[in-house]
């Protein structure tokens, strides 16, 4: 099934066209890599999908329904999770509470108001802490984590909501090689329940984990296809030779 479909999306910031007639499709159960030079519009595309930026024209379909008119909250509730390029965990809260906050966002406010601890979520949260190697640091403030750990925490928070589509904007920036490898393996293990659209500058990383790649350059799609197709494309080589 086509989980995410973007049709002729254009976004202008004043005179600057950040996205120009961008179309792409992401299937359920796959990882879709998004690459391109700095300023090519990758983050803007992510923000359009979650509703942080309003596109100038075009449509976004999630599970075959248009979502452009929906608020960020509604899109999140439909199953879109996100980790932005600029990490934003809740710094004053503990690592555990960050995930707890994310994990219970489906709950009714009355339920939350009457509940002191959400014991039913405990196992799920412990599992996420384990997966992202944060269990030892669960009671520390999120602000005390390293940049790489904060990225992990943010991914864990997005996953705690059990999204069907996860958008990751440069999730491995600032991570060591082993940390990257761990992240890659983790992401691959998720795709049965959750498709991923991922932006990364590390080409070898993204080549290894992605099923499909889309290359953006100055707001336009240069090439979209399987990793092999994109790698062999002369247009892509040109973009990367002349502009990176």
């Amino acid at each position: 099934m086509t989980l995410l479909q973007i049709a002729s999306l254009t976004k202008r910031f004043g005179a600057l066209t950040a996205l120009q007639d961008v179309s792409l499709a992401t299937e359920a159960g796959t990882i879709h890599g998004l690459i391109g030079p700095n300023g090519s519009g990758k983050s803007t595309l992510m923000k359009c999908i979650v509703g942080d930026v309003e596109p100038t024209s075009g449509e976004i379909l999630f599970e075959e329904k248009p979502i452009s008119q929906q608020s960020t909250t509604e899109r999140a509730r439909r199953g879109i999770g996100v980790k932005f390029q600029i990490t934003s965990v809740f710094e004053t809260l503990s690592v555990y509470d960050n995930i707890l906050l994310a994990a219970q966002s489906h709950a009714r406010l009355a339920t939350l108001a009457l509940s002191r601890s959400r014991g039913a979520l405990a196992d799920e949260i412990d599992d996420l802490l384990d997966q992202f190697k944060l269990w030892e640091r669960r009671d520390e403030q999120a602000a005390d984590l390293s940049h790489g750990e904060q990225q992990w925490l943010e991914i864990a928070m997005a996953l705690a909501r059990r999204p069907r589509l996860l958008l990751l904007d440069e999730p491995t920036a600032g991570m060591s090689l082993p940390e990257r490898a761990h992240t890659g393996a983790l992401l691959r293990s998720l795709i049965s329940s959750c498709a991923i659209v991922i932006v990364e500058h590390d080409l070898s990383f993204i080549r290894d984990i992605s099923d499909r790649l889309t290359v953006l350059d100055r707001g336009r799609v240069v090439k979209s296809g399987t990793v092999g197709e994109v790698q062999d494309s002369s247009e892509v080589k040109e973009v990367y030779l002349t502009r990176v």
Partner: protein
Amino acid sequence: MADCHSQAHRRGGRLILLELLVLLVLVLAPFVVSHYFTILLTRFLILALLALSFDLVWGYAGIMSFGQSLFFGAAAYAVAMAVKLTGSAPLIAVFPATLAIGAALALIIAILLFGRRIGASSAMLAALGTLTATYIAERIVRTTNVLGGQNGLSVPSAPSLGSFSIDLGVPFYVLALLTLLATYLICRFLVRSQLGLVLAGLRTDERRIAFLGYDVVVLRVITFTFAGAIGGLSGGLYALHEGFIAPNVIGVTLATQAVLYGLFGGIGTLIGPVIGVILIEGLSYKLADQFPYLWPILLGILLLLLVIFRPSGLVGLLVSDRERIGRFGTSRRASGQSS
């Protein structure tokens, strides 16, 4: 496990000690002080409700409000008018009516201010919107004859509970203390519940909380309405206690005072604003007579220093940020056992 529990215990210790200390002082006070001071203290307790109402809005939901006096004043005038018309003030009617007036008014304002999807400017909009509302309300009251205009209204009747009349002094003090205590405990339950965690998220990063699927508008409207109800309750008791109200009870000055109580005592803790009211009003009482010119300047400088160097207020001097924010969950699994 044992280790992490004792740690949590240590961290959770200071705030509750402070709360118990304040409670102890307030319970013992009427046995110690004169009738006159009991009446003065009663007023502080009633104003503490107003301060709590501001704290919920700003300290917990992150909405800067110069509007808490609006709910206070509206309920105060409603009670005054009702007493004037009926000649009595049964608490069984006063409590629900003032809560409802505060809540209804706050709900309307909250929907007007937060009802649309708004971005980063929402904090500014809230401050300006509530400020304008209080300003206009005071103007309207000042020029409305039925409401006594500039002269205000007298509230000639004491509140009653059944056939028992609650007079100034110890009886009214007990009423105010019990009302404050009950309100405080309800607020305490709420801000320590999982809803408190969501509010902590909301006030740190409203954008982020929306991406997690929380409805920022609903959260704001609910908190604002709830706080409005407490503001209304406070105003109703105030009118009955003072026996007289003037347009300033609905105005910008009192709204600002509520802000100062909170900032001075420490927002984001519930005990902070209570301490703020007692200290500011207590010191004002002591010093305003002796140094009528110097005192406001002194208070101003003190507040400024506190806001600059300790934005978390007096309570922030005693209690760590970590403890103020609190913890909403932790793993139950024993240390070392990792899958």
